[in-house]
């Protein structure tokens, strides 16, 4: 029975591979990764599944899962499908936190509106890599950082500021940041310092209930309410280092400024307060614990990592000439500033004779952000070739 199920699973993979094997990527690292998948599939094809015992079948199950999951994202990360400019900027941020060139950001385009998420199954299951190396002598130089985003807005640079938040999920899992904050907050509750408690209750109101505290202390789970809320606050904080309060605008709208927390997310009101306190250089115990713990684990201080520039280029329909990497993040802030500002400025500066519609401004801002990033990439690549 079990080998037959494994045969079924492998048949599904082989069917998928019929089309995926022709994928064409703009990034050589993905081509190398793809070739390794081919070697694994070839190895699986040579095996006699009927002769395997239970744990050997499980190993193959996870290997097939791994290849399938890789293809799910690589299929949407080809030359023609990947939101290239956005991914480029996210990789700039990623490299600040993980300087070794051992991660590749890949995307999967979803059908639903606002379906942004991070999937850690290829980055944080270290034992699958052990199986693969042992069974098929394949070792991966790169791991995939999987980010889901809606296909309909994949080139919307205003909405896509929330991808910094999704990248934050990768960072907090890579460094097990949530796990440490979880332990430290529960320890603080036991210390019962009134000032600390007041600040903890502000962001995690349910921790006023001793039974809840007991439950969280008894067993940590990555998907329990406290750990998910800690993680969401961290990701908001992570994102605001690059795009300041830009994701607040979008978040506030898509959640209808939700006043009550859910099991997965804190209330939007609290999330926005948390970020604004950070941006205004205020904040109490919880924020200072986040900062302390992140710095101790990663060696990196939480702080603004983008660079602002004063320009009216977008209003004049001209891309911004980005001179350094940190300015790439500033483009989103500038784009939001123009969107939220007076559109009449664009009409006047660009000497446009007709009234601009919201669709016109939307297209202008997105095109200009994309062009600004694209021009920087071309210039940067050209400089590298010259060297």
């Amino acid at each position, binding site marked *: 029975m*079990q080998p037959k*199920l494994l045969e079924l*699973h492998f048949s599904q993979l082989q069917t998928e591979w019929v089309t995926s094997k022709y994928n064409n990527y703009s990034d050589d690292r993905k081509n190398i990764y793809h070739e390794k998948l081919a070697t694994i599939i070839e190895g699986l094809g040579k095996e006699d599944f009927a002769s395997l015992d*239970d*744990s*050997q*079948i*499980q*190993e193959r*199950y*996870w290997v097939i*899962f791994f290849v*399938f999951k890789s293809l799910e994202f690589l299929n949407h990360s080809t030359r023609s499908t990947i939101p290239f400019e956005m991914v480029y900027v996210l990789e700039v941020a990623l490299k600040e936190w993980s300087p070794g060139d051992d991660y590749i950001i890949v995307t999967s385009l979803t059908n639903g509106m606002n379906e942004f998420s991070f999937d*850690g199954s290829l980055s*944080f*299951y*270290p*034992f*699958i890599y*052990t*199986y693969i190396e*042992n069974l098929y002598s394949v070792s991966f130089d790169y791991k995939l950082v999987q980010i889901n985003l809606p296909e309909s807005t994949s080139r919307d640079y205003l909405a896509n500021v929330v991808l910094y938040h999704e990248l934050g999920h990768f960072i907090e899992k*890579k*460094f*097990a940041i949530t*796990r*440490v904050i979880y*332990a430290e907050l529960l320890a603080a509750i036991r210390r019962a310092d009134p000032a600390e408690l007041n600040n903890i209750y502000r962001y995690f109101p349910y921790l006023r209930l001793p039974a809840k505290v007991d439950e969280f202390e008894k*067993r*940590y*789970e*990555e*998907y329990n309410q406290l750990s998910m809320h800690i993680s969401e606050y961290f990701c908001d904080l992570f994102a605001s280092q690059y795009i300041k309060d830009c994701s607040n605008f979008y978040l506030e709208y898509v959640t209808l400024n939700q006043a009550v927390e859910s099991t997965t997310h804190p209330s939007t009101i609290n999330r926005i307060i948390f970020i604004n306190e950070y941006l205004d250089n205020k904040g109490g115990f919880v924020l200072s614990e986040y900062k302390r713990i992140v710095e*101790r*684990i990663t060696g990196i201080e939480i702080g603004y990592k983008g660079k602002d520039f004063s320009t009216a280029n977008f209003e004049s329909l001209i891309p911004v000439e980005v001179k350094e990497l940190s300015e790439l993040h500033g483009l989103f802030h500038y784009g939001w500033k123009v969107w939220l500002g007076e559109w009449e400025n664009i009409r006047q500066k660009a000497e446009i004779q007709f009234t601009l519609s919201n669709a016109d401004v939307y297209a202008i801002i997105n095109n200009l952000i994309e062009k600004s990033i694209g021009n920087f990439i071309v210039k940067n690549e050209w400089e590298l070739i010259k060297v």
Partner: protein
Amino acid sequence: MNNRYFRTSFILAYLLFFMLNRHYMLYSYNPENEKLTQFAVLLDRAVKGEASYVSVVNDVIHQTHQFAAGEKTLYDINRDLTNIILLLSEADKDYFEHLADNPEKYDQQTYQRVLSLITPNQTTTV
């Protein structure tokens, strides 16, 4: 017992594969369980004498020992293994605390014991 455990978890894992891509799920799961399931496979291969898995298994057990004995803290244990080290340590702190400092002393009996600690932690339910 192990065969039954692997058979059940294989079927559940297979169902999981189909369910994860949907907006609703037939049953609950959590990533810790998946990591534990994957580690259990390594332990089973080590119990069966597969030398190529021994060093990985020994590393996890040794780091759990260091954490349980207070030689390492939450801040300096391996970040990839943080949750699994904490889960193992919580499952039987005393056992890991008193394990040998030298991982070369871990043997099939050790792997079998750790495997038996993991099995009851599998809480996936259909």
